[in-house]
Structure formats: C-alpha cells, structure tokens
C-alpha cells in the first residue's frame, strides 16, 4: 500500500473533529452572505412590484449590520477556520472601507429619478436590445432587481478575498467576487451593445487570468505541500532547490492578482469594461475591486512571499513604473470621460504599487491610505457622471462637458474637486495618499521609482486639469450636456464622497491613526 493510502486509512479510523471557527470574527462575511441568499429568495417569492423596496432594505440593512460588527471587532487579531481566514488590523480596515463604499455604490444603483426611463439597468437583461419586447418591458416599468443579490455576492467575495489566508479560499473568493461583476457589467439600460461587449470581454479575460492564478497556486502547492500562505512562507525559508516551481508559481499568481488591480501589461480589459458597464456599477467596481485586489496582493506578498522580497521586487518595480506611465500617457488621448477615468485608474494602481513594493510596514500603511482615499474619490467621480446627461443618456464625450461650469456651477465644482484629488493637489485626499506612498518608497531606497512616479503625476495632472479647464474656460455650446437633479440616493453618495475627499485631505490624521493601530498582517 502506498504511503498516501495508508495515511488516508489511518485518518478514517479517528473520529471526525469539528474545525474551530470563531463565528463572531467572520460575522460580517456571514451577514452579507446570508443577506445575499435571502435576496435571491426574494427574487423567487416576492411579487415584481414589491421586490425593489424589500431588496433595498435587505441590502442597506445587511451592509450597515456588517459594518457595525466590523467596527465592534476593532483590535481583533486572530486566524480562524483552521488557518483559512485571517481577521487582523488591515483586514478589518479594508472590510470597513469595502462596506462603506459598497453602501455608497448601492445608493448609486438604487437611483431611479435621473433617467426618465427608470434606473441604470436594463428592464430585462435577456430581452434583445431594441426589440419590441424591450420597449414593452420599459413601458411597463419592469426592473431587473437581480442586481441586488449580485451586489451582495460581489461584496461578500471581496470581504473573503482580503481576509483569505490560504490560496484555495483566495481563489474561491476571487470567483465569488468576479462572477457577479461580469454580469452587472452587461446590464446597462442604454447603449446595451457596448454593455454586453464589456461583459464578454471582462468575463473572458477575467476567467483567463483566474486560470493563471490557479495554476500558480498549484505550483506553490507542489513546492510546499500546502496552500496555506504561512506554510508556503515557512517552506520557502526552510527548503532550498526546486526554484523553478517557486518562480513559475509566483509569476502566475501575480498575473492573476495584477490583472484584478489593472496593472500594465494586464490592463487591457479596464477601459472597455469601465466604459461599457452601467456607470453606477463602474463606480462601485472601480473603487471596491481595487481595494479587494490590492488587499489580497499585499497579503500574499507580505505574509507568504516576504522572504523572497529580492526576487519579486525588481519585477514589481518595472510593473509599477510601466503602469504609472502607460496609464497617464494614454489617458491624455482619450475623448470619452469614462474611458479617460479608466486609464486614470490604471495610473492610480501604479501609484499604489509604489507603496506596495516598498515592502515595509510604512509602505503597507501608505498603500492602505491611498486605497481608501482613491475609493471615495472614484465613486464620487462616477456619481457625477451619472448626472451629466443629454437626450441620449449620459453625456460621456468630453466635448459635451464644455462650459458645464457656467451651466451647473455646483456640480462642476464638485467634479473639479475630485479631479484635483486624483491629480494629487494639496488639501485633497489624493495629495496625502501620493505623499505617503512616495515617502515610503524613498525610505526603502526606491528613489528612481519615485522620480518616475512624480513625472507620471505631472503627465496625469494635464488630463485631469484639462477637464476643469474645459468646464470653466469654454462657453456652453448647444451640445453641452445638462445636469439632472438626482434623488436623495445619489445626493447622499455624492456628498459623502466629496466630504471624505476634503476631510482626508485637510484632516488625514484620524485615518492615519486608525491605519497605524491596524498594524501589519498577522502571520
């Protein structure tokens, strides 16, 4: 009998022991997951007309409850579920950020008074674009309320993704997070061909990248005999040889994670998906996926591969530099504002990577601050884009934004604030974030990377400021879009993100204190 079968035989004789799980520590995940399941049942049993209010109550209630538990868990630092889930300072911080941003995203998705036809989603995603069925569904005021379970499942996946302490949980969470987002991307009410195309591209490329992630995990498992991040790290420091398995494993794993953060050269999906997806979904996805993916990337690099720092750092230096430069330069040539912001998000991913490759507690803290600041600014930016419209829907072409400052001064001022924050101008959150990552990089000796980063920031400032100039220093044309007054949903989300953008720029200390207390990843 082979040793493997012998060991299996021995195990079946012993009694089954329950895994030890601290249910309270993972309560935010359980609440959201339970709410998502209930939300699916609502789709099955509640009549069409009553679904929207019920779903809204479930979504907002569960996110607020999960947030309350997350706040109550502060200071927790433990590994539970037989080492599968790590609930530590950075996890809780990212949970908090994901839940708040998720709530703002839910508010944007709930908005119904901007578009005269209804919310941002197709009345029936299955109806052919432009068909009589579709017009009939629109006329009857049908709503695709399945977007709410999708939102909750995606958010659950993100919470697990940033807390996962082994590669199997991380892979499952990656898929739970991504699959609902692929579908949400394809559900826009207007410009449905673009939306469906975005969903197809997002899905095929996303599945491709997660296959890379999985194969990388298989290689690391082959090397260390475990999928646990800590065990992989221990094996790496104990065992020499079989270097090719480790190198291939790390490289493939990084492809999967860097795809999700939209780093060059794995960024090709970003502009298409950001442009084609319904704008509230773009805002939600741009902000939360960035947090979740960077959370997982940081944990893998710090917990599992910290001992191999010298091997992966040069690779990430090059990727960070390329990401900043390509994102900034290509954004200049864009004429569609959603597409421009997609390239801007690629450039921002590069700036965050500068903090990640610093590979120090300071680098971790600066990356976390940057992520939170970026997420609030981003969701606010896309909230404004949902409101700027013309007869055919959202006016995303930049030429239609000319003179908006004279037509709608308040909205233009808020949008300028977000642009200045993304450009990293002092007194906005973006400045504090950029300062943090560059300071961390200089402390760890990556001065050349900071120089590249500053050059990229200058290039990026050009296209951010160009939008402001376009809004204020040109006269409104007949083509200029007008701003639709939204209901309380969008107003709350927009106000919250604008307040946070200023608050984190003028008084960043409270968040910096929270991040300092959060400390580093548990091992």
């Amino acid at each position, binding site marked *: 009998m082979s040793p493997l079968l012998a060991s299996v035989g021995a195990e079946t004789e012993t009694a089954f022991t329950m895994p030890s799980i601290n249910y309270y520590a993972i309560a935010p995940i359980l609440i959201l997951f339970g709410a998502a399941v209930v939300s699916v049942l609502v789709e099955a049993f509640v009549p069409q007309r009553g679904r929207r209010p019920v779903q809204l109550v479930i979504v907002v209630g569960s996110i607020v409850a999960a947030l309350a538990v997350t706040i109550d868990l502060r200071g927790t630092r433990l590994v539970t579920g037989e080492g599968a889930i790590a609930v530590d300072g950075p996890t809780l911080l990212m949970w908090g950020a994901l839940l708040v941003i998720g709530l703002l995203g839910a508010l944007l998705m709930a908005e119904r008074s901007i578009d005269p036809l209804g919310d941002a989603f197709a009345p029936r995603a299955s109806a052919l674009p432009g068909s009589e069925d579709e017009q009939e569904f629109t006329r009857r005021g049908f709503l695709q309320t399945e977007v709410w379970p999708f939102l909750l499942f995606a958010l659950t996946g993100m919470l697990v993704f940033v807390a996962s302490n082994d590669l199997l949980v991380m892979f499952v969470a990656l898929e739970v997070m991504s699959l609902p987002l692929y579908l949400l991307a394809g559900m826009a009410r207007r410009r449905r061909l673009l939306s469906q195309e975005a969903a197809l591209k997002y899905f095929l490329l996303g599945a491709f990248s997660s296959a890379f992630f999985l*194969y990388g995990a298989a290689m690391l498992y*082959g090397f260390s005999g475990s999928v646990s991040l800590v065990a992989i790290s221990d094996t790496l420091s104990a065992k020499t040889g079989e270097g090719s398995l480790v190198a291939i494993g790390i490289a493939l794993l990084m492809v999967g994670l860097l795809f999700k953060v939209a780093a060059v050269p794995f960024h090709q999906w970003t502009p298409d998906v950001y442009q084609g997806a319904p704008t509230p979904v773009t805002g939600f996805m741009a902000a939360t996926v960035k947090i979740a993916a960077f959370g997982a990337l940081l944990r893998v690099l710090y917990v599992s591969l910290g001992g191999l720092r010298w091997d992966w750092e040069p690779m990430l230096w090059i990727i960070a530099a390329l990401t900043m430069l390509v994102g900034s330069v290509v954004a200049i040539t864009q004429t569609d504002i959603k597409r421009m912001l997609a390239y801007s998000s690629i450039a921002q991913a590069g700036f965050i990577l500068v903090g990640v490759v610093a590979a120090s507690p300071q680098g971790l803290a600066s990356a976390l601050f940057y992520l939170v600041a970026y997420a609030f600014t981003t969701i606010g930016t896309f909230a404004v884009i949902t409101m700027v419209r013309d007869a055919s829907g959202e006016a995303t072409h930049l030429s239609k934004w000319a003179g908006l400052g004279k037509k709608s001064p308040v909205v233009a001022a808020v949008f300028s604030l977000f642009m200045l924050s993304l450009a990293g101008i002092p007194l906005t959150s973006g400045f504090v974030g950029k300062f943090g990552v560059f300071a961390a990089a200089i402390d760890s000796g990556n001065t050349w990377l900071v120089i590249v980063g500053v050059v990229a920031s200058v290039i990026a400032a050009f296209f951010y400021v160009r939008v402001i100039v376009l809004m204020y220093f040109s006269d409104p044309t007949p083509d200029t879009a007008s701003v639709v007054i939204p209901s309380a949903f969008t107003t709350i989300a927009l106000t919250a993100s604008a307040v946070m953008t200023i608050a984190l720029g003028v008084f960043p200390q409270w968040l910096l204190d929270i991040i300092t207390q959060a400390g580093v990843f548990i091992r």
Partner: protein
Amino acid sequence: MNPSSYVVLSALLFSIGAIGVLVRRNAIVVFMSVELMLNAANLAFVSFARMNGNLDGQVVAFFVMVVAAAEVVVGLAIIVTIFRTRRSASIDEPNLLKY
C-alpha cells in the same frame, strides 16, 4: 508511473489552453480553452497531492470543479446574450469599445 509525468502533462494542457484562448475566434471555444486551463491546474493539484503525500491538493480540485461549473453558468449566459444580439459568437465582431 512517476507522478511528475502528470505534472508535465498538466503543463502541456495548460499551455494548449492558453494558446487556444489567444488564437481561437469563437467565444465558446475560447471559453473551453479557459476550462482546459482550469482542469490542467486540477491535474497538477492532484499529481502534487500524490507527490507530497497529503490530501490538500485533491480537496482543492473539488473546489475548482464547483467554481468552474459556476463560471460556465455565468459565461454561457453572457455568450448566449451576445449571440442573440449579434447572431454570431465571434469575439472579433463586438468591436465598439476600442482605443
């Protein structure tokens, strides 16, 4: 038979899948190639489980099968929607989003 042969086989299958994704033009075939990559990873996991003498890899393979099934549901839904709109499953035709 030496289990490391199966690792080599899985690497071959993974490469065939990756090349399939890059060169094929039909969305269904591209998607099949992605599934081939996932199954190649499964084969690697199971072979390594044998080589390492523990069961973790086999457990992972079961999880991956479930995830792959969920991915099929979502993927085919998206591909069928595109097919009904455009009467074609070619991934070259949806080309409205570019530059």
